[in-house]
């Protein structure tokens, strides 16, 4: 093979052409800018406590810098963008998914521990013992808020004493005149009032009308106690609910209990073991895998879906191959006229975008209005429940997928049959061989070997045929008694997708564990394929 200077690592001389010299400098500048941009991202991720993503972009930036400065790696510059694209959007997500599978990452364990702590510390609660009834008085200058104490001190609790102290025994407050039209989170100071202001209080209907504005108000007493709206007729002091202790635990003031950060489960827990949500993701080892194989509510549906996935992919390959092969054998017949037209019409299902044809079938199979049931009803008087009966739904999927997939097999078989030497059939005809003899003694043995890797690729594709399931049945009808969203027509991929994105719990950890199992299966198929296809590099 002929090789270029670059790959031999020969020095590249200063170009004679100014234009080329400038281009080189421009390229160097571009690389420098890219490296700087990546380093900025690394820094940003690092400062936001995302070490994994910081590391990812550090590796990417470093690789970029090295490949584009070392002369020895000249050839690698050509492949770098594509390899980087694959690394970033295929390999990194793969590794990240495997990483998630060992954690309890889910919608309840989403934020980092610091963010969870900050969120809990920002929570407030109402001190019930010191509620104030309120009235609105409108005047020319604006609206006045008048508060009168309702709740009586019960004398218990540390916080209550604090509130009493801040109130200093005053039980009536009023604000100055103000407008209720203004924006959010306003702090308004209130003063002790001698008695009710003059004039008629506004009706409840008017109070309701300005509810949104009132909810945004924070009333501050001279001692700094903050009151917020606690109902249509009440204001009450809002206190910080949690207090950080030095040992990292949180003290719950409302319920008078201590919360301790449990780094095994990723939650703050009380002495009784109650978990406070939200939690943060922590490593849980093989828990997710253990759940798949040991928890009967997950294992049952999982095994069912697993078997169906294999059956679906296997049967699809079988049916499409059968249809495709028969058609290809017909179309390669010399005596047949109009082959080009037949061919074009036969591959039409392949030319229509899949997302459209799948939806067409969804409409046609509709149990009440669909054409298929109309025709079946007219001919045989039956109306099958295509979408609610598990076996009929599976049959429908296979019918639709055969329709979608046979043109590919037809094209493959046509290509392979055409490459068989004609003399073989001539010799067979001389010896009196019929079509069946030709099929089993000549055609099949000769095409099966080059076809096998393509069939495996097709199997792997249908094994992961997410689009068909998502658009046609969405996995329905559901498997009864499953603790995760699992359908009788779900494939492993769509099952994973539903656990991660459709379930209320969004259990990313469990979904990632199942995804990892599929990765292993797909990797096995890919390696087998590579070996059978004898890929020459």
């Amino acid at each position, binding site marked *: 093979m002929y090789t270029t200077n670059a790959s031999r690592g020969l020095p590249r001389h200063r170009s004679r052409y100014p234009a*080329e010299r400038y281009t080189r400098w421009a390229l160097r500048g571009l690389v420098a800018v890219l490296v700087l941009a990546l380093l900025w991202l690394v820094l940003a991720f690092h400062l936001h406590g995302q070490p994994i993503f910081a590391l990812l972009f550090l590796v990417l930036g470093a690789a970029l810098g090295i490949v584009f400065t070392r002369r020895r790696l000249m050839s690698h510059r050509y492949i770098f963008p594509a390899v980087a694209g694959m690394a970033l*959007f295929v390999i990194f997500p793969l590794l990240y998914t495997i990483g998630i599978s060992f954690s309890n990452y889910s919608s309840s364990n989403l934020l980092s521990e610091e963010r969870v702590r900050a969120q809990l510390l920002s929570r407030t609660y109402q001190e019930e013992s010191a509620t104030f009834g309120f009235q609105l008085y409108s005047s020319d200058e604006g609206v006045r808020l008048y508060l009168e104490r309702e709740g009586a001190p019960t004398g218990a609790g540390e916080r209550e004493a604090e509130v009493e102290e801040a109130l200093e025994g005053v039980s009536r407050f009023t604000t100055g005149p103000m407008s209720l039209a203004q924006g959010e989170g306003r702090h308004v100071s209130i003063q002790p009032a001698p008695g009710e202001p003059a004039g008629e209080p506004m009706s409840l209907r008017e109070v309701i009308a300005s509810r949104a504005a009132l909810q945004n108000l924070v009333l501050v007493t001279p001692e700094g106690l903050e009151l917020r709206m606690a109902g249509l007729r009440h204001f009450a002091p809002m206190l910080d609910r949690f207090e950080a202790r030095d040992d990292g635990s949180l003290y719950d003031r409302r319920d008078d209990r201590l919360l301790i950060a449990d780094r095994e489960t990723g939650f703050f827990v009380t002495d009784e073991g109650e978990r406070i949500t939200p939690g943060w993701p922590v490593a849980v080892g093989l828990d997710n895998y253990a759940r798949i194989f040991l928890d009967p509510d997950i294992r049952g549906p999982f095994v069912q879906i697993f078997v169906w996935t294999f059956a679906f992919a296997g049967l699809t390959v079988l049916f499409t191959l059968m249809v495709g092969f028969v058609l290809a054998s017909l179309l390669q017949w010399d005596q047949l006229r109009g082959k080009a037209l037949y061919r074009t019409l036969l591959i039409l299902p392949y*030319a229509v975008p899949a997302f459209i044809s799948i939806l*067409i079938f969804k409409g046609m199979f509709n149990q009440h209005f*669909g054409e298929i049931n109309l025709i079946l009803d007219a001919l045989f008087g039956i109306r099958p429940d295509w979408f609610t009966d598990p076996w009929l739904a599976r049959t429908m999927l296979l019918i639709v997928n055969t329709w979608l997939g046979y043109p590919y097999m037809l094209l493959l078989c046509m290509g392979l049959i055409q490459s068989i030497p004609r003399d073989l059939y001539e010799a067979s005809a001389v010896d009196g061989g019929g079509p069946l003899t030709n099929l089993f003694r000549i055609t099949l043995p000769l095409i099966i070997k080059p076809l096998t890797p393509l069939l495996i690729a097709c199997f792997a594709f249908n094994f992961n045929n997410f689009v068909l399931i998502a658009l046609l049945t969405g996995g329905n009808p559901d498997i009864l008694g499953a603790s995760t969203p699992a359908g009788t027509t779900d494939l492993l991929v769509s099952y994973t997708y539903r656990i991660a994105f459709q379930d209320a719990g969004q259990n990313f950890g469990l979904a990632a564990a199942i995804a990892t199992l599929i990765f292993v299966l797909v990797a096995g198929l890919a390696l087998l*394929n590579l070996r059978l296809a004898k890929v020459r590099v």
Partner: protein
Amino acid sequence: MAMVQPRTLRWRKLAAHLSLCGFLVLILFPLLLVISISFREGNFASGSLIPENFSLEHWSLALGIPWERADGSVVQPPFPVLLWLWNSIKVALVSSLLIVLLSTTSAYAFARMRFAGKGPILKGMLIFQMFPAVLSLVALYALFDRLGQFVGWLGINTHGALIVASLGAVALHIWTIKGYFESIDGSLEEAAMVDGASTWQAFRYILLPLSRPILMVVFILAFVMSIMEYPMASVLLVDEHKLTLAVGAQQYLADHNQRWGNFAAAAVLSGLPITVAFLVCQRWIIGGLTAGGVKG
């Protein structure tokens, strides 16, 4: 031409034609049906294949023009189909241009240069190619969610994210182009370099003009694949006006409210150009698809 022919040839030919035609009717029925429905009145499936009550209502709505019924009521288009189509085309155009750019330069290196790690990288690409993106969606979502905090146009609900994410799927195209490059004799470039051309010049002025057909094929393939991409777009895009056609089209057939007629018009409108493009370029596309052993 076969020399030895059986006597029953005429009957067998007739039987072949008949069975092929019967099969074609069965296969093409859904496609003809949808075209017919798009011209029918109402959103229910009834009536014959040739519409009795011919109406352009669905087509008008699919093109985004409000339709005035005979009784005077005006129907507004339910979904912005043309906008979705435009989004799809925009994303597909940019991403397939980028894919052609990246895979051509890589394929050149793989076909013409010798360097460390060439074999393993090529094989690794083939293996990783088989992992479906659906399974890594959680990770991809997390990646773009975080990236979006710092780089706005790469966040969730942007077309930038969708375009960039499609760059992961270049392996198939690299293999296709590499195969073509290897079929071109290297002596032309060698001659150019003896005359003083640089590596880049040999690539740019000799090899690229010769391989224009395969680049067209890869571009069309990448374009069709991008138009049909569903899982990634369904997770990354949120707002209705940002959706691509593949994600948006299914909203017509929601479980409780089937807009069968409207869907038919939108499906024909958006599917027909893609189908025609596919059929026109079928020779090249099929070559590329069967060579890679991966269905689009």
